[in-house]
């Protein structure tokens, strides 16, 4: 149960970017997991070369990823969205981005498994008879902090509210004197910046190779949809539900069922509540 909660916190961190970009901006960015892996490799390189902590690297690289995200969005906007060709061709575009990132990482760093070192990896603390691994606890706490930060950004700041507005009514936002494209660029950048941190958390938990992203595509989109499109709190709730379900199944009924049950929950939830748990 505790392991599930911890896993949930991590899943939330990984899914926030998708929740923002796919949930709020309605852009089917399936390259998001590849950006997460890119974040993992940034953490790996800095850890190996300079001994920097993975999560600290993730934080330091957020501005770089933000710019990268903004550039990718501009490219997408100019090529597809402006011409109203975003649905299918946009999907193909992001598939392309995913493959480019994957192949570039393979060429540069090879296909060996990459890990990072940190003092807290492999250690655990005992809380009331339950051993809690730092390797999972730290990513969970960072994940919760990220969720809170993003929630505050969206609800308290001008740009955050503008992002919410652009997801609801583009035209109205334009009439208010704000440029929807600029707002979307910012939101997309923030989403990709979140991938930098999420990648650092991922490589703290498990070793990565360039193709690890494919393991996460399903989970990320499932969590976003289950939580309710664009709801940050919903993303956290859904991530915890999936994490706990996976953990409980692994412990009590055998790990082979864990993924089937997680996605079973998604199916049932969508049948009962098509908008997602906390969707509007």
């Amino acid at each position, binding site marked *: 149960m505790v392991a599930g909660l911890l896993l949930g916190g991590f899943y939330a961190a990984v899914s926030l970017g998708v929740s923002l970009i796919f949930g709020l901006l309605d852009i089917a960015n399936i390259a998001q997991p590849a950006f997460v892996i890119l974040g993992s490799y940034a953490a790996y390189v800095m850890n190996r070369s300079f001994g920097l902590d993975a999560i600290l690297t993730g934080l330091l690289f957020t501005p770089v990823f933000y710019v990268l995200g903004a550039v990718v969005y501009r490219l997408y906007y100019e090529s597809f969205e402006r011409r109203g060709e975003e649905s299918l061709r946009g999907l193909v575009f992001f598939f392309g981005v995913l493959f480019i990132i994957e192949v570039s990482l393979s060429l540069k760093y090879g*296909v060996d*498994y990459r890990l990072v*070192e940190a003092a807290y990896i492999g*250690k655990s603390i005992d809380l009331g008879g339950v051993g809690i691994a730092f*390797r999972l606890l730290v990513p969970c706490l960072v994940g919760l902090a990220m969720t809170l930060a993003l929630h505050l950004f969206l609800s308290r700041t001008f740009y955050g509210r503008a992002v919410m507005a652009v997801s609801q009514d583009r035209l109205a936002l334009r009439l208010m004197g704000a440029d929807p494209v600029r707002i979307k660029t910012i939101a997309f950048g923030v989403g990709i910046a979140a991938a930098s941190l999420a990648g650092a958390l991922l490589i703290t938990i498990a070793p990565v190779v360039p193709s690890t992203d494919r393991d996460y595509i399903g989970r990320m989109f499932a969590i976003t949809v289950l939580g309710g499109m664009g709801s940050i709190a919903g993303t956290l709730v859904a991530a915890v539900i999936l994490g706990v379900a996976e953990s409980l199944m*692994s*412990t009590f009924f055998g790990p*082979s069922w864990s993924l089937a049950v997680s996605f079973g929950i998604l199916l049932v939830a969508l049948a009962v509540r098509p908008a997602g748990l906390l969707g509007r």
Partner: protein
Amino acid sequence: MKPQRIRRWALTGGVIGALVLAGLGVPTARAAEPIRIGFGMALTGGLSANGKPALLAVQIWKDDVNKRGGLLGRPVELVYYDDQTNPATVPGIYTKLLDVDKVDLVISGYGTNLIAPLMPIAMERKLTIMGMFGLANNEKYQYPNYFQIQPAGPDPQTSTAIGFFELAAKQTPRPQTVAIVGADAEYPQNALVGARELIKKFGLKTVYDRTYPPSTVDYTPIVRAIKATNADIVFVASYPPDSVGMLRAAHEVGLQPKIFGGGMVGLQFTSVMTSMGPMLNGVVNYDFWAPEPTMLAFPGIKEFLKEYQARAEKAGVDPLGYYLPPYSYALVQVLGQAVEATKSLDQQKLADYLRATEFNTVVGKVKFGKNGEWAKGRTLMVQYQKVHGTGIDQFRGPGKKVVLYPEELKSGAIVYPYSAAKN
């Protein structure tokens, strides 16, 4: 067409024809021609981390042979293509090698899945084929001219686990209960089938037998469930990410079986060893080569590794090269010895010789048996001992990966139970 032009065409055709015939018909010109060995190799894609070091090993052999004057007085040349770890490319690559490049000999690429599509081609053309690390590729075909270099032996399914369970059964107090766990994928499933067979053979009691999806992120719930069974033996059949996940979780949860490991792929790789460091201590796991005195006694291995490690950095491959490269070198060494001994490139003569002979190689004596596998299996069981920190240099010398099995290659004693070696 005018008669003049016809004449000109005929003349040109005649000249070309004569040139072609002259090229084919002068046997003395072939004496200096190189012997060409062709293969596809995983230089990109999922298996390239092993394919590239394998290629380097074969290249080192080629250079060694050419320095000594080549084979049958002819220099050796390699013709190879990247199979991208994609079995679909294999038939095309070998058809080109045989029909266009006209290679004299072929060897396989790396790995079971890349050898499988080569088998029908080899059989159709009656080729003698050397296989590089294929698990049970010839079980179905029973093609007599196939020879495979991974020391799995005549019973590939139990080859990974046999040493592990034989060792466990010998310890006092004798362990009684077993937990086995592995990924839902081809290799782990095979290894688990073998493990179940051995559990029955040694009269042990299974208390946990489960598989998990390869995309599992967190292994602590699995390890916790295993811990709850209090099993004496924990046998794990896993691929690299899950091997790392299981080992970390075992430390976090405080798993204390009497013996732990078995079939964990990935712990042999330098990149993983230098990341896991002391967490490896105590794990008993399968391996193929370790820098222990018993393994370094094989003729030529020290020279080979020295050359490999000197060239590894430039080639961007595994810096130590203990897992696959010695066997890749041995594979072409065997083929070269067969060519020299038979003084021939005739496929059938080579195969007859390969079947009948025991070869001296950098990985020891190699004798092929049933289905072209090693006549006697020699998958090692090693135990990681006294690993301190994550430096790479400690893994270059003996004492860190002690060979426990088989008896004739044993280089040290097992630290038992697992908890005694763990820290």
